[in-house]
């Protein structure tokens, strides 16, 4: 792997601010970004990602690579949790295995935009429609996770006679706040681009120009949160630590070969790989906390947020780029 790529990635403002947050915790600085300010940035990023993705999707239309790529992404979000579940069952019960598996089948939007910034830095082109793949990978992973619990697990009686029904599974997976905002903004972006080009123009300063700075601010907070999570990971044991680093690489490698099969260019291929390799710390944990309270939340949050996320944005992205460059010839 070209260590040069890692260095270039690390020396970009978003990653530097992430480290600033991490080091603040390590040095015990009292820097903090009080609630609900991180929520503001998180809502903003989802809205902006979705809106811009919708515009791009309208531009590209549903032709060529769009349908196969999005289809393959959804497939991956169904498949990865199954693989993860089998591995995790070696050590954990059904509840914990299913919850962690669902997180890894889903995606991390911030990892995705970090990869986009990385590509822009390297002047490698990519398509906006990849956001559609991002938006559509959250729900299936949640559904698989809940079905695994329903099929494999001994469901205790829930209070208020609320057994896990298919309806409530769909509800939790589609209407989770962040999934809903992302999908809704995607649709709004699409409709606006179709009917109201002036509206696209007027949104640009907010959703476009401001984006990079807001990303940096949010990553500063993510650095703080991730570093606070790290010590708790130790308690989770070395199996989970290994899982949090090796599973993304494994999923990423599968992703590279599927990207090749889909004949994606290197830019789109990297984004596809990052979707496979990243794990959710927004929609999935929230859904799991509600529907599978038997699972220990510290397991699935500490792994995704404390280890997989930092690994992916710092080392993973350049590493996957190297994979992509090896497997996919850059001729687009």
């Amino acid at each position, binding site marked *: 792997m070209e260590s040069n790529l890692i260095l270039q990635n690390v020396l970009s403002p978003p990653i530097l601010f992430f480290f600033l947050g991490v080091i603040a915790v390590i040095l015990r600085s009292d820097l*903090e970004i*009080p*609630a*609900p300010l*991180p*929520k503001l*940035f*998180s809502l903003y990023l989802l809205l902006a990602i979705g809106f811009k993705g919708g515009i791009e999707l309208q531009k590209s239309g549903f032709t060529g690579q769009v349908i196969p790529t999005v289809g393959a992404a959804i497939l991956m979000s169904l498949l990865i949790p199954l693989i993860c579940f089998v591995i995790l069952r070696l050590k954990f019960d059904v509840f914990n295995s299913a919850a962690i598996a669902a997180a890894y089948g889903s995606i991390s939007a911030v990892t995705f935009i970090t990869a986009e910034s990385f590509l822009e830095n390297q002047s490698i082109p990519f398509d906006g429609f990849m956001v559609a793949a991002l938006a559509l990978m959250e729900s299936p992973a949640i559904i698989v996770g809940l079905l695994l619990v329903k099929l494999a697990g001994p469901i*205790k009686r*829930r*209070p*208020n006679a609320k057994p896990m029904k298919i309806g409530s599974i769909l509800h939790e997976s589609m209407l*989770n*706040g*962040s999934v809903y905002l992302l999908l809704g903004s995607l649709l709004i972006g699409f409709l606006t681009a179709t009917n109201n080009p002036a509206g696209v123009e007027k949104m640009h300063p907010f959703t476009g120009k401001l984006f990079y700075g807001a990303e940096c601010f949010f990553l500063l*907070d993510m650095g*703080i*949160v991730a570093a*606070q999570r790290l010590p*708790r990971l130790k308690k989770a044991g070395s199996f989970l630590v290994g899982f949090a680093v090796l599973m993304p690489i494994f999923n990423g490698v599968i992703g590279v070969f599927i990207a090749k099969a889909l004949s994606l260019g290197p830019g789109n291929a990297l984004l596809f790989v990052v979707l496979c390799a990243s794990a959710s*710390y*927004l*929609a999935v*944990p*929230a859904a799991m*906390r*509600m529907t599978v*309270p038997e699972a*220990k*939340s*510290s397991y699935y*949050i500490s792994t995704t*947020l404390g280890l997989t996320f930092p690994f992916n944005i710092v080392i993973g992205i350049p590493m996957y780029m190297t994979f992509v460059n090896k497997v996919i010839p850059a001729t687009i």
Partner: protein
Amino acid sequence: MKRLDLIFSERELEQVLAALEKANAPGYTVMKHATGRGPERVITEDMEFTGFGSNAHVIVFCDQEVIEKIRENIRSILSYYGGVAYVSEATPL
């Protein structure tokens, strides 16, 4: 009169308030954004942005009668999802 203190994850707030309404509680006060540690779980404010939510602290001033009606329902919610509930004495000013 009694004072009931309920502390649990914000995500169960709707369920708990419904239980209070069902027992005809005369009113209640909700304070969100509480954090804390129970026997197993740690919930910090830093995680709030994830939609994972922090805790809610609900205070109810009511008669013993309401307490009795509420008990079973609240207990089953808290024992399943976690949280604490305590009763103490209170006199109107």
